[in-house]
């Protein structure tokens, strides 16, 4: 009984380390192939459209909604202490430091990461990647790189959109509905925000989350079992693993960056 448990733990650890090794090798191959010509501009633009432009509405609406909720909650809290003029700071810090990058990354994982895994997984199941290998075309180069690069570039851009719309949402509630002074909202926000730590930190997070989403979703696609059950398992794995990695990485970056 105890031995069995130790056995299982050992096997799980080995599997974990093995997959860590595999994903590192895969990441190395992706980076190597990204730097190697040709740059497949047309395919990259197609991916940017699919992953970025088509995610605009979900990211935009979520950003606005989250900003409005934070604005409302923040006002209700601050007004008790008579410091509702600090609403801009309240909304700004929660959005820029945490909610902006994290929520954008989680939404993108569900919206674009899972789709990428499912697409590549279906290509594995229908032997399209084997077909490429037979033509001596590296699937990492032709299939993975445009998608991974697309996801990587799109994450910080959409994070910026989320943050701007969330700040606007907070403004809308605070100034438009609750009557906070517009000058105080913007002025206090500007004064409190420190560009090199807060704003740059936000984008550091967004870049790292972009790496995680693009790496995990393409890796899960390429290593997917070649059947429909495999595709569905890989898609689920992408959402679960990428979300967890994002949240854990968020803590580590916050701790190290010293927000």
């Amino acid at each position, binding site marked *: 009984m105890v031995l069995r448990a130790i056995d299982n733990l050992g096997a799980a650890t080995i599997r974990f380390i093995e997959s860590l090794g595999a994903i590192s090798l895969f990441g190395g191959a992706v980076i190597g192939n990204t730097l190697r010509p040709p740059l497949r501009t047309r395919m990259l633009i197609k991916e940017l459209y699919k992953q970025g432009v088509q995610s605009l509405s979900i990211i935009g609406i979520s950003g606005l909604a989250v900003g409005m909720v934070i604005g409302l909650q923040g006002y209700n809290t601050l007004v008790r202490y008579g410091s509702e003029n600090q609403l801009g700071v309240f909304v700004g810090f929660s959005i820029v430091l945490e909610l902006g990058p994290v929520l954008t990354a989680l939404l993108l994982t569900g919206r674009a990461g899972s789709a990428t895994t499912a697409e590549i997984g279906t290509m594995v199941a229908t*032997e399209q990647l084997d*077909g490429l290998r037979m033509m*001596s075309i590296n699937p990492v180069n032709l299939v993975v790189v445009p998608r991974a690069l697309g996801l990587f570039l799109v994450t910080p851009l959409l994070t910026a959109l989320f943050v701007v719309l969330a700040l606007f949402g907070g403004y809308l509630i605070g100034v438009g509905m609750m009557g906070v002074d517009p000058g105080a909202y913007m002025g206090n926000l500007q004064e409190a925000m420190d560009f090199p730590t807060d704003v740059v930190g936000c984008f550091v997070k967004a870049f790292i989350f972009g790496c995680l989403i693009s790496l995990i979703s393409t890796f899960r696609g390429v290593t997917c079992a070649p059947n429909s059950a495999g595709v569905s398992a890989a898609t689920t794995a992408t959402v679960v693993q990428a979300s967890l990695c994002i949240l854990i990485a968020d803590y580590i970056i916050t701790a190290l960056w010293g927000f």
Partner: protein
Amino acid sequence: MRWRFRASSDMFPNTMTGVEATKNERTGASDEDHIAFHNVNVELGERMVIRNLTCGFPKGRITVILGGSGSGKSTTLRLIGGLIAPLSGKLVVAGTNISKLSPRKLVPVRAKLGMMFQGGALLDSTNVFDNIALPLREHTRMKEDEIRSEVNQCLTRVGLKQSDGLLLPRELSGGMVKRVALARAIITKPEIVLCDEPFSGLDPITTKRIELLFKQINKELGMTMLIVSHDAAATLRLADHLLILMPDRSVQGPPDELVNSSDPRIKNLLSTDVDEDFVKLDKILDTNAGFGPGDLESTWS
């Protein structure tokens, strides 16, 4: 055609210098073979799929691989393409032992291979034209109009219209997918063409047409062709050489010899007339008794 990796492929001469093959009996491989299996074992997911296969595929000839469903025909082709590695044994393709090659070292070997997959394996995000043009764009420095004329020529060859080039794979019928896959396999004029069930799902006229096409490119370009097929009639018309995979053993030889084989399973596989089965079926239906697929099993096992 200027293959970027042609320079390195000179290291691998077409003659089978690397093989010290002995001439086995009828199940063996010989020196003139373009592809040779020596005691190859393959395990997939803890199951032995191919057991101790020794056979050869003669250069410049059409070999048809026959066998029941699940007998390992597709696996054989995937082995030759280096998509799966054998558990043990030696596998020589165009003079190179590929049984333990890294993907990088496989590149010059694969440059000599064209493969048509059972399901087509076309890239579904690009249209037919781009699918066929892909190997040319990736590996040659041909200009766009050269590529255009080459691809269009290839499309006509397999009996498709130029306008079909604009369709996406999901807009094609099953037979058209097969023809596009074939076009993509032969566009680089490889030495060896591997075709997985090129006739299944095609109407008799297209089947004949593809048969003729196989004969034609085999004659004109001297390609070695390996064709997996279920169609006995087409097999006997096409094959210069036959490989029959059965659960317990494999047999190879010229078709006219194998037709007269004493093994009833081989006879069954190669029989072009199915009357016997229909008579049996009629009888079963007459007696109104139920029958299962097992009653016709003798054909395959």
